[in-house]
């Protein structure tokens, strides 16, 4: 089977240079029907990544810049009085798109944040008693500035759990930076991208991801990981059952992207930093460092 993911990854890698692993994770997150949180300083290509993915997947793309004065209605939409009909009419907000880039989400107040996050969780919004379904697929990429920057409202832990993965992009390496500096404008490149995976095949793939086999041996390993996080004294709290499910879904997607029909421990290990890093409220902010004890101590066999 020719992996339909491969050309997509190739195209993305041509736009965002030197970030193969992060792109892979982002796509994995998407295939696992989860939302993505990118945490990094401004300017490392968060927006570009989101934009590229939207373009390659042929999704409606909307960027919402979160500011300190953004209101929930600015995201969800509001009922506005229509003088002709003499009635209130709902004007959908930017959230009614297939791919949302919620930029600098921690600049906004918790109120606005929770409006977005509730929508993410329930795949629908309720305004004045009426429920509106969000489009499908629905995929949110939120970006967040590092918490120590001034004027930010870091997402509370309970909200972080709603993101399947949190990744860090980091600075490009020297070669990639050189190519970036010498090459074409990224914006133009993105404009010229063609859709590699339209929504319908994407749905198919998401369904196939669900059928990836998980053996009981692997579940043992996963459970050992989860138990470990609950017992390890450096983690103030362990992984929740929802986190466990997220980990499993992400591992399945990862296995699928590797053209495998069964999940291996390596798949779990590959997605673990991104999936578990932000859920284990550890002193260390670096996801890889947070999960290092797990990878080191939980026996695979």
């Amino acid at each position: 089977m020719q992996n339909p993911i491969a050309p997509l990854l190739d195209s993305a890698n041509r736009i965002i240079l030197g970030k193969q692993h992060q792109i892979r994770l982002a796509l994995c997150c998407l295939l696992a029907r989860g939302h993505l949180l990118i945490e990094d300083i401004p300017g490392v290509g968060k927006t570009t990544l989101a934009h590229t993915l939207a373009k390659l997947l042929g999704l409606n793309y909307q960027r919402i810049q979160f500011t300190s004065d953004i209101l929930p209605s600015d995201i969800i939409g509001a009922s506005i009085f229509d003088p002709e009909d003499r009635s209130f009419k709902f004007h959908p907000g930017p959230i009614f798109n297939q791919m949302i880039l919620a930029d600098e989400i921690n600049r906004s107040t918790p109120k606005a944040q929770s409006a977005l996050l509730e929508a993410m969780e329930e795949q629908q919004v309720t305004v004045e008693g009426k429920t509106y379904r969000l489009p499908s697929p629905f995929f949110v990429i939120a970006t967040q500035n590092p918490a120590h920057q001034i004027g930010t409202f870091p997402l509370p832990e309970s909200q972080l759990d709603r993101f399947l993965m949190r990744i860090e992009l980091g600075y490009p390496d020297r070669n990639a930076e050189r190519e970036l500096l010498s090459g074409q404008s990224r914006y133009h490149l993105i404009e010229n991208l063609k859709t590699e995976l339209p929504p319908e095949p994407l749905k198919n793939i998401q369904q196939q991801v669900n059928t990836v086999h998980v053996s009981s041996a692997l579940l043992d390993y996963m459970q050992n990981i989860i138990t470990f996080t609950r017992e390890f004294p450096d983690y103030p709290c362990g992984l929740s059952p929802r986190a466990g499910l997220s980990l499993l879904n992400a591992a399945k997607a990862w296995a699928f992207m590797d053209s495998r029909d069964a999940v291996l421990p390596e798949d779990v290990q590959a997605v673990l930093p991104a999936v578990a890093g932000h859920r284990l409220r550890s002193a260390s902010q670096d996801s890889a460092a947070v999960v290092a004890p797990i990878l080191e101590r939980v026996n695979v066999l």
Partner: protein
Amino acid sequence: MPVDIEKNILLFLLISVGLIALPHIYHIPASTFGFFALLLAWRFIGIWKPSCLPGKFLLFLLTVGGLVLLYSQHQGLFGRDAGTRLFMTALALKLLEIKQERDLYLIVFLAFIVAASQFLYEQSIAMAGYILFVCCVLLGTLVAINSRRQNTLNALKTAAVILAQALPLAIVLFVFFPRVEAPRWMLFEDKSRAKTGLSDSMEPGSISDLSFSDELVFRVRFQGQIPPNRLRYWRGPVFSVTDGKRWTAAKHYTYTAAAEPDFSEPAYRYTLLLEPQNNNWVFALEMAGDYPPQLRMNSEYLLTRSGNPDKRAEYPITSYPSYRTGTLEAHKLRTNTQLPGPTSQKITSLVKRLGGFDKRPEQFVDRVLQHFNQENFSYTLTPPLMENNPIETFLFETRSGFCSHYAAAFTYLMRVANIPARVVTGYHGGVLNPVGNFLEIRQADAHAWTEVWLKNRGWVRVDPTAAVAPERIEQNVNIEQQIASRNISFFSADSDLARQLDWLKQARQLWSSVDYNWQRWVINYHSANQTQFLASLGIESLKQMLFWLIGLGALFTAILSWLLLSRKEKTADKVLRCYRRFCARLGKAGLKRKAGEGPIDFAKRSKEAYPDQAAAIDEITGLFIKLRYQKESSQADLNRLSERVDRLKIRRR
């Protein structure tokens, strides 16, 4: 602080206490057992209705009642019966006062003592098995107390496992623990209880097993020659009156002096050292000629002494094995031909067939002995019970028994043929102690034989047992050992008959052999036996004995700890076992899999280290992944994985 004690633990404990005390229903007075049963039942009710348990005052009254009951039986505090009653009463009273876990322990410990007291009354295999079972239940109670899991069956299982593990060690202790006979002052014997050994009557049919004790009865030191074993008959009470079952002495003339027989040489001079006895019999070698004046000889040639038989005594005696007694008075003739009633047709015809009515008495005696010898009569210490008409049953049905059976039957047959005959009991043989150069006669040497009155010769000793088990009489060998080593067949040469035996008989024979060995090796494993047995293993000194005891004990402990503690975690998963083998191979070569390393990562690392084995590593890893993580895999894959792992050759770097 009172602790809540689980209901099922209590139930468990009470049942086991009931079980442990149950056999004592035969041993202790009904009043004491009733007291125990009442309090046990009370406690049982108390499990469900705690309010009906007695208060402090009532408990005090009960204690007083129990003590009064004990006192009223005038048993004192020591001795078997008194001790048993005391512990039973204490156990019963303690049952009503369970407040803490400690009380449960006390009850269990008391119950163990009561269990041990059962053995003072009965030592059969069945009793041993029963007590073992009840001990298991008692230990189970302890396990249940200490376990917070509410599963009594599990506790019982654990107790059984512990007991089973303790058995080998207990057997080692049993074999090697030095047995020393208790000094006499320590025996708190009850006066009322008859000692084992000779009694003043004989009832062969009612005894189904004869347990020999190793207790010393007397010692004999000879001046000069020691008589051969076939002459060593130590005369005890004589029984000439029978009711068909029971043989007793003829009371009215027991103490009238006898006419002295004519003696002829050789004479044996010896000193008899009598251990404390119940009766005032003095067991002289047949037939005593000269004896000290404080002894008297009755008309049945039995020496008796006056004074307390409880004391050790020493008598110089001269005996003459060849003797001739005089004529038989009329009333003695009557007594010694007395029969309990009309003789049955079967016996009469047997006597007739053997020539009892037409042959001379000597010939008849020989023919009866021949009959015992050639028909399949057998010698056993565990004959079946013969309740009614024991003589006929013995002669025609069971045909197995020990000396008393033969003596009784023989005497009876003689009397049917109108030949005066009587049963003589006493001891036979004795073991020569080479160190002290004296004979030791123990209770196990108790014997019964017969005397027949023949014209011209007077009373003549005939030992019918010798016809069946001549070894016992002629050689100085222990017959029990002979049977144990199967030198003596239970049947005479006629082995066709043995083959015709049906399985039931065989089972019975097997059982009696088992029971015999039980008697021989377990019940009677006393100091003499132990010394003999251990000597046969080459263990002679006490030092060696202790050495073996400690050595074997240590060996068993080591084996057990190895079994118990080194139980390596074995993976049931064959796939994982194969893969672990693979990892172990690489590990030996210096490449250890880290705990958190998945198979693919490990394969990558090992391929870098051993590029020459890359293909094999890939295949093993692939198969392992297929078997462990993928949906479908087959037995063939597992076989291949196992084979590939075995074939893998890694050279140490």
